[in-house]
C-alpha cells in the first residue's frame, strides 16, 4: 500500500477502497465528535456538577427522544472513531497473527459496546410523570 506523506495522524491511503473510506470517515466522525462530544463534556462537567447526575437524573435527561437520538449518534461516532483509531495503533505496533487476533478482538469488543449502548439508550423506560 502506498501513502502520501503528510503531517496527519495517518497518511491518506491511495486508491478508492475500504481504507480510503475509513480515512474519510475518521475525519467526518472527528468533526461530528468535535461538536457532540465537547458539548456533552461541557454539559455534564461544566453546566451540571457530576454529583447530581444519579440514575434519576440520567432518566430525566432521556425523557426527550431528541436527546436520546443525539446521544445514540454520539455513541455511533465515538465507537467508530475510537475503535478504528485503535486499529491504526495496533497496526503500527504489531504484525502477522498477533495483529489479526488483536484486531478481531477489538472489533468484537466494539460491537458488544455498541449493542450495550444502543440497548440502554433505546430501552431505558421513560421517567414516571407525577400525577
Amino acid at each position, binding site marked *: 500500500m502506498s501513502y502520501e506523506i503528510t503531517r496527519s495522524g495517518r497518511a491518506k491511503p491511495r486508491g478508492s477502497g475500504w481504507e480510503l473510506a475509513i480515512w474519510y470517515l475518521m475525519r467526518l466522525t472527528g468533526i461530528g465528535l468535535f461538536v457532540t462530544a465537547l458539548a456533552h463534556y461541557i454539559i455534564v*462537567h461544566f453546566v451540571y456538577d457530576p454529583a447530581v447526575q444519579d440514575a434519576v437524573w440520567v432518566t430525566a435527561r432521556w425523557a426527550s427522544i431528541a436527546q436520546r437520538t443525539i446521544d445514540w449518534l454520539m455513541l455511533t461516532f465515538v465507537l467508530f472513531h475510537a475503535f478504528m483509531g485503535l486499529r491504526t495503533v495496533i497496526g503500527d505496533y504489531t504484525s502477522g497473527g498477533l495483529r489479526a487476533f488483536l484486531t478481531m478482538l477489538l472489533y468484537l469488543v466494539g460491537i458488544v459496546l455498541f449493542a450495550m449502548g444502543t440497548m*440502554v439508550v433505546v430501552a431505558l423506560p421513560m421517567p414516571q410523570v407525577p400525577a
Partner: protein
Amino acid sequence: MLLRYRGSEGMLAWAFHRISGVAIWAFILLHVLDIWLVGVNSELYDEVLAIYASPFGRVMESLLGAALLYHALNGLRIIIMDFWPSMTRYHKQLWYLSWVAFVLIGLPILIQIMAPAIGLEPPFRFGS
C-alpha cells in the same frame, strides 16, 4: 524517548494525539459500561457516580477533559492540513494556536470541576 527523539513540534503533536486517543478509548469502554448500568442496575450506577464525584474522580475527569480537548483541537489541525495541504507549511503555528485555545477553554472548566474537591462552590452558576 519523546523528548530525545527529534522532539520537534510535529512529532510531539502526533505523540500526544496518540496517547490522548488511547486514553479516551479506555474511558469510552468504562463510560458505555456505566451508562449501561443505569438500565440494568441503577443502584450500582449511583455507587460508581459517587466515585466520579469524589476528589479523585474530579482529578480523573479533569485529565479526561484535557485529553479530549487536546485531541479535538489537534484533530482539527490535522483535518485542516489534510484538506488544505498548503496549510501544512504552518503546522507549528497551528499547534501553538491549538495550545492557546486549550488554555483559554480548559482553564474555566478545570476551575469549575475542581472547586467542589477543595470545598468551594463551583464559580460559574447556571439556571435557578
